[in-house]
């Protein structure tokens, strides 16, 4: 018994109390900032080096739906125009909302509709579907529920069955072999239901965007409610994304 108490005391107070204001490691690569610095004439270094074609030029913009936060562009730019900040709060309700342009310092999603907030605002059960994910996103989504991040305190939890869920969270580029199962899982969720795409692979195919083994037709058929970028997204990115979307404190 004493040993048990000792271990309990050892736990201390590991929880992240304010999920919106937590420190990150100094090298953490979060929301990229694009400064006013002028591009050199004809320079395409950042766009050429980006492994996932996330960068467009004239003017420079970064598509967070593709970005794997590697920071090759930051290193390649001779003008230091791109720098990754330590801000982990980023998500969008639209695909276009993930495009970062000059001068932007963060992106926050639009509020969910009143109906969604009424239904799911205090309790949201999600079914996670790994559709070709490398398990990076899965590890971080699992971590959302651990004693450090404790998403459960907000009433947000992962459920075992789609029948018990209010929506699905997709990770991975959706492989051909998982396309059917993803659809079946979505169909099994009772209405009203939501879809959250987590990680670069789910949002755009990420590093697998040119693979012949993926089938993303599921995404053409359904409206996506929330995009959470990252490779993988930090647990706090996911937690704050859902909280901001549901307009929760």
């Amino acid at each position, binding site marked *: 018994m004493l040993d048990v108490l000792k271990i309990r005391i050892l736990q201390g107070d590991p929880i992240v109390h304010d999920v919106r204001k937590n420190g990150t490691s100094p090298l953490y690569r979060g929301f990229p900032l694009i400064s006013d610095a002028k591009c050199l004439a004809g320079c395409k270094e950042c766009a050429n080096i980006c492994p996932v074609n996330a960068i467009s030029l004239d003017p420079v913009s970064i598509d967070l739906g593709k970005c794997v936060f590697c920071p090759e562009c930051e290193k390649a730019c001779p003008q230091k125009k791109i720098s990754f900040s330590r801000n982990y709060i980023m998500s969008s309700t639209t695909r276009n909302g993930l495009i970062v342009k000059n001068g932007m310092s963060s992106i926050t999603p639009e509020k969910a509709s009143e109906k969604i907030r009424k239904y799911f605002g205090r309790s949201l059960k999600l079914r996670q579907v790994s559709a*070709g994910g490398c398990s*990076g996103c*899965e590890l971080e989504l699992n971590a959302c529920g651990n004693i450090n991040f404790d998403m459960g305190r907000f009433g947000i939890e992962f459920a075992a069955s789609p029948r018990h869920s209010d929506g699905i969270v997709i990770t991975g580029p959706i492989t051909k*072999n998982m396309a059917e199962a993803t659809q079946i899982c979505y169909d099994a969720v009772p209405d009203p239901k939501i879809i959250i795409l987590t990680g670069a692979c789910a949002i755009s195919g990420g590093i*697998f965007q040119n693979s012949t083994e993926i089938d993303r037709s599921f995404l053409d058929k359904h409206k996506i409610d929330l995009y959470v970028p990252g490779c993988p997204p930090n647990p706090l990115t996911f937690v704050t994304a859902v909280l901001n979307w549901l307009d929760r404190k």
Partner: protein
Amino acid sequence: MSQLNIHNTQHFKLDNIVFLKNADFRRTVSEDLQAGKRMIALCPVDRNDRSKIIAVFADSSTSMITVTGCDFANGPYELESFADKFPQTNFFECELAESHGFSLLNHPWQRPVRKQTVINGSTPYKFFGITGDEIHEVAVGPIHAGVIEPGHFRFQCHGELVYNLEINLGYQHRGIEELIIKANAIRRIILNESIAGDTVMGHMSAHCNAIESLCNITPGLRAQIIRSIGEEIERIAMHIGCLSGIANDVGFALAANSYGRIRTIMINSLGLICGSRFGRGLFNYGGVKFDIDEITMKTLLANMRSVKSDIAQINALMFSSVGALSRFENTGNVSFSDASSTGLVGIAARSCDIKTDTRVNFPYGAYRYSHLSMMTMLTGDVFARAKIRSLEIDESFRYVIEQLENLPEGSISVDHGDLAAGKAVISMTEGFRGEIVHIAITDKSGNLMQYKIKDPSFNNWYGLSLALRNTAISDFPLCNKSFDLSYAGHDL
């Protein structure tokens, strides 16, 4: 000399491989298998041309890798199976048949590896079945109850007891080997970091060692040690995560949550070194992208010492709990002979007293200079697979702290040139699950024409099937967690 003998990560000219006639190949490979060598690859030398294949064997007792070639240029593309006598080749042969259209002669159990439709066309693969009173079949997956990757499990049960479990994977197949061949250097790195998101360090180490060997460069000692520190922190973190899962599966919430808490500290330590909690972005061709400065060093050492002391207490609690031990002991047994004949690797093998650890048997990188002890257990049950993790964690802590305290000065990166043309390399590392193999082969113009990856899960999923025989189906989650295998690494 009909075979090529090489060391881990030693590059060699493709011309040095002798491609034998089918009958000679068969005889030579049989001799290797008879001698107790372990198959680590069976693939064509050119991904798009199946006329020449290689069988690669590892011999732990001599630390040598053996490459035997076979020429199929005049067809027919038929391979006489070795699997009947040597089950360890079974799945490699299935993979060769599925990926490159070889027909297997006298194969005892040809089944899909990643693509359901290649062998059987539109008729679904037929699982083994049993009939009789009180017999029932349980089908689970691909989507499981939890935040976990997809796979299909088919149990044949008699009451509570499992007679046979078949595991059917491929749901995560995203064509990673094909993409690696076509990719430039930067894409290759991101792809290799995404083979298995929990083994970023292990796979990146294998990949970088392979590419560096083909470029004929060697990273400096400081870079190599930082790499091995990354690999060991990953091992500690993932082993702790597994122990947390095991504790959770026997309903031991305090241990599960305590392990969970310290796992966070460990992956955050990786984040401290390179910005990513899983070590993404740390490895680069020629070394590492991030150095460990004074301040990071202090925090890292403090983290290591505090987790090391905490985990000793949590382990003491878990491994002295009668309730937990009664679930662990004698559950999901795998025998030494089954494990060695089916070619299990890593934790699954060492828990059955098979002495295999790439860091010891085929040392690479910093492990050539600073050694780690190999941990083995005798019983091959859930207890052995859990306990061995706690032993490896202790050993890795010793290693990491020692290396951090004695980190040599030096540059963290050297320039790398182009890949040498017409060369090949076999690179083995020990990920936290076990032996990882990467094979890279370049064509006459120095482009990759074959990139073959073998994750330890490729060998070990069958070990889980064996563990479930005569085990209660209710113990499946516990057995599954004790193996802690990767779907993504298997499916590629």
